[in-house]
């Protein structure tokens, strides 16, 4: 049986409202509780590790006591105040470091997981070749392609990503040096796949991811996303040995890029001049799916 019998849930906070933390923990606790209750799932331990990168702790001592009191006794709640904004990658790595649990579930705090999410994600790892799985996000469903029968996909979203601990550590976890917060999930997925392992999508594992829509039905982005998205793409293309994608991206942005995107381009060129770029991974291009500006096929 390859299904993990213990899961460590890693949640990295940065200036999140306390109500959002409660929302996340309430739903996660219930989902863990139902998975622990079902003997056929084979899960016997869940640790919820919250790491706070905020300037001032989001969760006070009293809040922490209440969160613990509201949690199922079998769900152990750990809390770390990092006293620094580590970024998603370093924060997640810190929470996963030395994890004794079989798998780590990285979860965004702006989420509300369905009661059956933990169970479905644990079951997604039943096949020993599957090392990572993500869930279906609502209300804005991710358009990336997945195999309708097996779930195989190019990469798994870090908003809700379960990874076998051993495999996570074997690839060195998230790459905080080159991908501190953005596209770090694509990078991790591809490095896992380079080892011949499978990264799958489990559409029955549902999580509400708090995305808002603008008047044109576009998903609202944060101010920094256009910058980080482009910089991350150029770094990914560099690391995964796709100079053609770097060239294409640079050429397109020089003509059509927004101010933020051009700023990212300048930053990339500055790093390039200074030799401050990730080393190319050998044989990386085989997993690097750069298709139509995305990191893999899309369904729509």
């Amino acid at each position, binding site marked *: 049986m390859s299904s993990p019998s213990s899961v460590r849930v890693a949640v990295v906070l940065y200036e999140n409202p306390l109500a959002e933390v409660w929302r996340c923990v309430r739903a996660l606790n219930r989902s863990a509780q139902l998975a622990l209750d079902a003997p056929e799932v084979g899960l016997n331990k869940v640790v919820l590790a919250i790491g706070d990168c905020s300037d001032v702790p989001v969760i006070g001592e009293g809040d922490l006591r209440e969160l613990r009191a509201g949690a199922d006794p079998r769900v152990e709640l750990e809390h770390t105040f990092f006293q620094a904004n580590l970024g998603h990658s370093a924060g997640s790595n810190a929470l996963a470091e030395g994890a004794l649990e079989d798998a780590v579930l990285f979860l965004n705090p702006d989420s*509300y*997981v369905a*009661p059956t999410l933990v169970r479905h994600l644990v079951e997604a790892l039943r096949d020993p070749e599957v090392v990572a799985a993500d869930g279906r996000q*609502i209300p*804005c469903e991710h358009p990336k392609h997945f195999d309708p029968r097996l779930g195989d996909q190019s990469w798994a979203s870090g908003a809700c990503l379960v990874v076998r601990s051993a495999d996570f550590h074997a690839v060195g976890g998230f790459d905080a040096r080159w991908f501190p917060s953005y596209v770090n999930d694509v990078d991790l997925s591809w490095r896992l796949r380079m080892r011949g392992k499978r990264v799958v999508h489990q559409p*029955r594992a*549902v999580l509400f991811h*708090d995305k808002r829509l603008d008047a044109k039905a576009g998903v609202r982005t944060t101010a920094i996303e256009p910058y980080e998205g482009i910089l991350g793409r150029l770094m990914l293309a560099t690391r995964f040995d796709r100079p053609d994608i770097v060239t294409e991206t640079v050429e397109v942005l020089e003509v059509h890029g927004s101010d933020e995107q051009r700023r990212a381009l300048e930053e990339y060129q500055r790093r390039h001049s200074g030799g401050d770029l990730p080393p190319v991974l050998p044989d990386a291009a085989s997993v690097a799916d750069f298709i139509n500006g995305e990191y893999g096929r899309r*369904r729509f």
Partner: protein
Amino acid sequence: MGNYEFDFNEAGPYGSAVRLLSTSAPEGRVVLDVGCGAGAVAGPLGALGATYVGLDLDEESVAALTERGVEAHVLDLTRPDLREALDKVVNGRRVAAVLCLDVLEHVPDPKSVLEVLASLAAEQSDVELVVSVPNVGHVDLARQLLAGRWDMTESGLLDRTHVRFFTERTLTELMVSTGWYEAAREDFVLNRSDQSRAGHPLFEPKSTLGALVDQVRSGADEHGKVNQFVRRYHRGAARVAVAVEEEQPFLTVVMRTQGKRPDTLVDVLCCLGAQTDLDFEVVMVVHDSSMETEVRGVVDQFEGNLAHRVTVVPCDGGTRGRPANAGLAAARGEYVVFLDDDDLVTANWVENIKSGARTSPGTLVRWWAAEQHREWAPNGLLATHTATGPLTPTYATRFDMVKHIRQNETPFHCFAFPRVLVEMGFRFDESLTVCEDWEFLVRAASFCGVHDTEEMTSIYNKWSEKSSSHAVATDEWLVMRSMVHVALDEKPLLLPPGSVRSLDRRLEREEVLQRRIDALEGELAAVRAQLAHTEQVSTNAHFALSELRASTSWKVSAPVRLAGAVAKKAREKRQS
């Protein structure tokens, strides 16, 4: 003599009172007519075999009755020893009934009078009480107030000696609180009360304004045309309605489900569990009561903070309007919104509704939806259903009443309305198999007006036809559309401010288009005429030609034409 010498009239309130008593076997027993006046019902009750006893404050009335040979006594209902005085009158006789016809509205403390009568009845068996009081909720009084008038009169609804005023609700509360329970009623209806003003548009049912007032009043309850409540009561235990301070959520989310698609139901519940504003309850109407347990099971999988907000209401039969009405009936929120079990909303859905309601109280709150194509997956695949297209801003337009009369442009989960509309008689039309939300929306928007928040917080899932359980045949939809229009046309419809210019623009556009059509039709007619003329010329020419060719002169001149043609060719050759 007092002012109340009304004659008995079978068709009037007195006739109703006597009929209400006729089944209670008053033969041989006393009927006390409290506030009897001229004793209008003495004769008819005597005919039923009852011993009529008139009681009144007015000595002249009592004397007149006594003179007619009818037993009558002077009685002041405000006297502190009322019970003893009544006992003295009854004097050990069996009492069949007590009448309080046009009395309670004249006494400052009707409650104590009714309590005394209840105590009297408690010592006898089968004592009935018949009450007749004027209805201050008659629509004519609403019309008068709208006209700025409150005209007291010598008699009638606003008799100047009335000191208490009753609506159906306050009368019932008073009676129950004093231990009297309604057994029968024969309310006296007057379409035009004494307060009616003939010819005034507020009062005339054929005027638009009059019809509108009728529509509003009849929506509230069915007593708008009742002039007098005439009711018979049995004695029972006194009960006072205790106002329970029930916490009212801001919003009731009514969900209709058949319980067949638990996967999408889980998705919607996740959306609700993730709301940033939790000031809501969920009324989950299961439109197939056999699925109630399954649906409750799905709900109970969720964490308590969501699960405890959900009330599951079973409902069977009928169209889609039936569970919608069941949801309305169970709703407690200040506002109500519908959310079907296969749509999605963002986390600020409730927050946005509340913000809209606080910005524009009493209005219908409306927002936008993105549309996404979605389909159910065949069995054996990982996903049970999946999105097949991007989010598109299909429903991102401001509310336009005129356009909505033509077609519905607002998904059901994109508007919320004040629940008080239910008190005003708003229900979903259960005769409609589809479009029930459209008819409701237009009527509600007509009354409330619409506040557009212009926030996109909903996602309308457009299921592919082959996988949709709601696929509706076009002809059925057309029939329902026609029914909606008929229903909307039965009553006046209010248009919001700004409609005149909007309509004017549309009418202008129609005129411009019509002129263009006229011009094009004129051009087309001219071209056709020209074509017909040309065809005629051509036909004539052909005819003339064929006649010429058939003529003898043409035939005999053939060699000449041949020679001419040869000579012409030879000339052309030389020139070239």
